[in-house]
């Protein structure tokens, strides 16, 4: 991974760091108001774009940070394993995930946050997740072929299109800022929703 791991931080710290990061992540989610399903689904109805902003900001911050660390040799990006890009299964999975998000009002992480502050709908949603996981696992042989189809391997977008990851990053940052601006304008025009 580079000098940060394992030379400065030894692998024995993995679990401890994971717990600290997890708690910090939960804390940030909760303080951003992500334990409220009404705030979360606001992005679909156009009255609150906090989800889009927070996650887009997180994505570009993390990417730029990683690219810089990789550039300075602190982190070896080639050693980071991504999930294989299975194009069509991911599209279908995304649609299912989106439907679950808009109807349930949570995504898996935020539902745990909601449970953390004792929300009943969080519990119900979590039960749904467990049920979904169970049904998926039991039915897996039925769609195993589709699940493994159109596999491009472990590639990133810049790798696939053979462009510089840095310029790609510039593009993503610009898109993010434009998205922030556009959503700000949309929110100004839409009637405020009290929740």
């Amino acid at each position, binding site marked *: 991974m580079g000098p940060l791991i394992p030379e400065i931080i030894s692998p024995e710290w993995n679990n401890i760091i994971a717990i600290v990061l997890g708690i910090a992540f939960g804390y940030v989610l909760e303080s951003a108001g992500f334990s409220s399903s009404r705030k979360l689904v606001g992005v679909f109805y156009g009255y609150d774009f906090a989800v889009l902003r927070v996650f887009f900001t997180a994505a570009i911050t993390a990417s730029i940070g990683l690219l810089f660390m990789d550039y300075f040799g602190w982190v070896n990006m080639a050693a980071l394993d991504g999930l294989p890009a299975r194009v069509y299964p991911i599209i279908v999975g995304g649609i299912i995930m989106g439907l679950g998000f808009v109807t349930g009002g949570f995504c898996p992480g935020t539902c745990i946050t909601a449970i953390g502050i004792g929300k009943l709908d969080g519990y119900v949603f979590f039960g749904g997740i467990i049920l979904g996981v169970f049904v998926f696992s039991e039915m897996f042989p039925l769609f195993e072929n589709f699940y493994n189809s159109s596999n491009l391997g472990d590639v990133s977008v810049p790798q696939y299109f053979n462009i510089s990851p840095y310029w790609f990053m*510039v593009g993503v*940052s610009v898109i993010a800022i434009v998205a922030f601006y556009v959503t*700000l304008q949309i929110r100004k025009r839409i009637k405020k929703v009290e929740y």
Partner: protein
Amino acid sequence: MKKRYIFLALVPIVLSILLALLPDKSNSIDAKRIAKNLKSAKYTGVSPDKLLLEAVNNDRFIQPDELATVIMGQDPSYMLIDLRDAGQFEKFTLPGAINIPSDQIMTEENRATFESDAYKYVLISNGTILSDQVWMILRRAGYDNLKVLNGGLNQFYQLYLNPPKPGDLDPSEAFDNYRFRKAVGAHLGLPNPDEFIPGGSAAVVAPSVTTETAKSATKTPAKKVVPVKAAGGGDEGC
């Protein structure tokens, strides 16, 4: 719009442009991308330090006696890969061996041979050097279950053509070993020096061991290993 927003919006854009304008560096992501491409081509199956560790110990070797047992028992879990060129392969090889010349080892078709987990692949050449080189290439490419015939065909042939006779004081295992090697020799169709050469095995000139580079010295028509006359030097081609 608040000034703070504008500032915050500018930060990622400026940072990412900065990143794009930085001079290329050896540990930059481009270099890593090349490494990653190699990885996706299965070139980094084994990390260099692990490979080094494997290269200095002798686990990869299969001893001639071990291989002889495999051949005699027609063990289907072993695949014998003869790495010499087709000409030498034609002249002599071990029973059941297939020919993949060492310079064609990484062609698509030949690599597919090594994909199966069901086989142990025994790499065979005249000596150990060529097999070791191929072992290293394949190992680095991530292939498993590779064995190198220790001493190569030269030693194998020598061991079974003319097994060292145990002395009178040697333990009985040595005699068993000797008989086993004789039997293997007979099984492989190797000549038995005791039988047809006046003066017994002492009269058989030990076949000269050739190096990998001296392959051209072939003169034995040894495909079905015809008894070589006492002139010796019979197995240069093996």
